């Protein structure tokens, strides 16, 4: 029996993935559950297991290709009667590819993609608009005649999602013009922002260029950050923490944590201090539900830690930071960061964050502008800790001492909290970091 293996629904609104590697060749015999390809969805790579035992008959995808949910990846000549009696192929693949599915609980809930089989009714031009705005037509409520989705429906949906209507394509712009000359000249010459991909040009009016498809992590990052920036009114607040004492403490216990399999970085302490501040200021551990006009306060503390990888910025999430010891956090952080760098972190490890920490310090820099990890309400950035002369005392009696100073920046959603809250929030973190003994009391 021939079995088509389709890309299963990945959940979490993800509707496509990039093929990273195909692990089998046509003619290979595979066993049910044996990995047959590696797929990268938004930010995680996953090995996809074979849905049946059998022989690979046909491989329809190549590495580098972006495939949509439901696309046929490969076909198998399945073996055995048990398989022939199995439920329809799609269900088989869904079931077996459990690893790809969204985690059943945990993480904030997003409206699931209702994968209705029937495509929604809409004119092709409306489909183009939806495609340009990145809107899934199946999620748009239709208002047109005969249950059709109209362009207005798509625009309204986009606004609800906080997406700005894209700049009109050259064709659309041309349509606005009366000038007959422009009509014939423009459309073919100026490439529209087409997802189908334009021919790669070698130069523009100012010099040589190279066009590279926006793919994979870069693409996910671009979409996500654009949304965050468009939707969230960002304000940032900065201060400096004196971590001289804390660093001494850190160096003292470094070796011991290393033996336990972790790395005692300053991040671990900042995580702990942040979670204490999040508990005191719940507005920083929240999100906005725009449709119901409500603030959703999260009563769990999952902190994403931005990791710089050669594929781009990836943010694995450390769960329940409030319930883990410094030692546990140091071990977990090292493990997840290393796996993330190797592309081995699981998809569910990237989801469900309530707050994010980003540390540019290792590469230098004192002040920067972190962008909030939508739909969270705040992000904490760490600059580079530097030994600096600090003046103590007053004008009459003072001394200058070398101290280790850590710049901290919090960017926050001004819809939920105000600058004064941010000052207090950051103040509490600094207080904890500057007084390791107090840190003990708050964590």
């Amino acid at each position, binding site marked *: 029996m021939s079995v088509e293996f389709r890309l299963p629904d990945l959940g979490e609104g993800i509707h496509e993935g990039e093929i990273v590697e195909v692990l089998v060749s046509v003619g290979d015999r595979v066993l049910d559950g044996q990995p047959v390809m590696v797929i990268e969805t938004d930010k995680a790579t996953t090995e996809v297991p074979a849905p049946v035992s059998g022989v690979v008959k046909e491989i329809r995808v190549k590495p580098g290709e972006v495939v949509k949910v439901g696309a046929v990846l490969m076909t198998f000549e399945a073996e055995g009667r048990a398989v022939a009696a199995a439920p329809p192929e799609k269900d088989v693949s869904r079931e077996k590819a459990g690893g790809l599915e969204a985690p059943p609980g945990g993480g904030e809930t997003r409206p699931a993609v209702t994968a209705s089989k029937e495509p929604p009714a809409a*004119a092709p031009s*409306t*489909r*183009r608009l939806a495609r340009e705005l990145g809107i899934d037509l199946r999620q748009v409520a239709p208002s047109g005649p005969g249950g059709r989705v109209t362009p207005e429906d798509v625009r309204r949906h986009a606004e609800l999602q906080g997406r700005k209507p894209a700049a009109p394509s050259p*064709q659309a712009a041309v349509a606005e013009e009366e000038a*007959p000359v422009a*009509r014939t000249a423009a*459309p073919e010459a100026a490439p529209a922002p087409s997802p189908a991909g334009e021919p790669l040009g070698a130069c523009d009016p100012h010099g040589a260029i190279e066009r590279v498809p926006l793919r994979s992590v870069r693409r996910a990052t671009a979409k996500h950050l654009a949304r965050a920036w468009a939707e969230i009114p960002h304000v940032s607040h900065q201060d400096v923490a004196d971590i001289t004492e804390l660093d001494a403490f850190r160096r003292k216990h470094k070796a011991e944590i290393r033996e336990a399999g972790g790395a005692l970085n300053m991040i671990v302490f900042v995580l702990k201090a942040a979670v204490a501040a999040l508990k005191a200021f719940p507005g920083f551990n929240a999100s906005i539900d725009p449709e119901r006009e409500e603030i959703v306060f999260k009563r769990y503390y999952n902190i994403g830690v931005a990791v710089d990888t050669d594929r781009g910025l990836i943010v694995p999430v450390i769960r329940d930071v409030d319930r883990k010891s410094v030692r546990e956090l140091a071990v977990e952080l090292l493990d997840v960061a290393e796996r993330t760098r190797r592309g081995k972190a699981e998809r569910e490890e990237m989801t469900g964050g309530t707050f994010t920490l980003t540390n540019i310090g290792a590469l230098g820099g004192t002040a920067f502008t972190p962008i909030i990890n939508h739909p969270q309400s705040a992000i904490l950035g760490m600059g580079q800790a530097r030994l600096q002369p600090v003046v103590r005392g007053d004008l009459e009696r003072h001394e200058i001492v070398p101290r280790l100073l850590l710049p901290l920046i919090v960017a926050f959603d001004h819809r939920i909290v105000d600058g004064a809250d941010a000052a207090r929030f950051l103040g509490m973190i600094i207080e904890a970091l500057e007084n390791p003994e107090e840190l003990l009391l708050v964590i």
Partner: protein
Amino acid sequence: MAKMTMVQAINLALTQEMEKDDSVVVLGEDVGVDGGVFRVTDGLIGKFGPERVIDTPLAESGIAGISIGMAVYGLKPVCEMQFSGFDYLAFHQLESHAARLRWRSQGRFRVPMVMRAPYGGGVRALEHHSESREAYWAHTPGLKMVIPSSPRNARALLVSAIRDPDPVVFYEPKAVYRAFREEVPEAEETIPIGRSQLVREGRDVTLISYGATMHPVLEAASLLKERDGVEAEVVDLLTVSPLDDSLFTQSVKKTGRAVLVHEAPRSFGPGAEIVARLVEKSFLYLEAPIARVTGFDVIIPLYQREREYMPGTERILRAARETLSF
């Protein structure tokens, strides 16, 4: 510049090309002494003599076959089929020889002939005198299929057809032959074969047609403007094959809507190909299904029912409005 009917404009093209080039010859039934059934070849035999304006027997296959032979040996025959409804008798000659001789001989022989034929309904004619079967020719690789819509473009296209190195089928809409006059410049004018023309600018809907139905189409475009305030863009194909899809696909990218009009029967007619090109090239710009206003899949009726068959202004208006209100 003189105002001319299409008949006079075609006569002018033939006269001037024959004056300019000795290898151009005209042949067909009654094209000589009688000056042709619609007087298209009137006066040519007096000017150029019976060696270059040849009255042939009533034998379409022979007319086409002789033309192919003349063309292969260096002449540029312009043969006339007295009504397109009889050119099927020449179909074998054109399909099996004229259209493929260049290919068959790997380029050694060319067939620079033109087959003219009055086509289409609207003049209350007999059976076999009103059909619109351009699809037969357009579907034949190796042939070009040209259909003018007005005196001026008929003249310019015929000059291009005569000079074309390959066989061209040139259908003349007889409903337009004497329907109106248009300024036709005395000086030479050509229109390249294989290029369509934008005859009216608009932004709301694209009307695509050619030949005789261009006139109800243009009338419908004016009425849409007057009555509905709708700006229709109108494209005249001029050449049915090879089909120039760049202009109309571009236009539909702007308007999002298309109505195409021809009097040929609907199924497998030229309109079907135009719809296919629009779907291939302008798909994501379409805001409504593409409408076709065509003849029906029946033999064109005799004169009492002919008007029901022809795509008239009202049918075009209705289709345009449906498309616009989709």
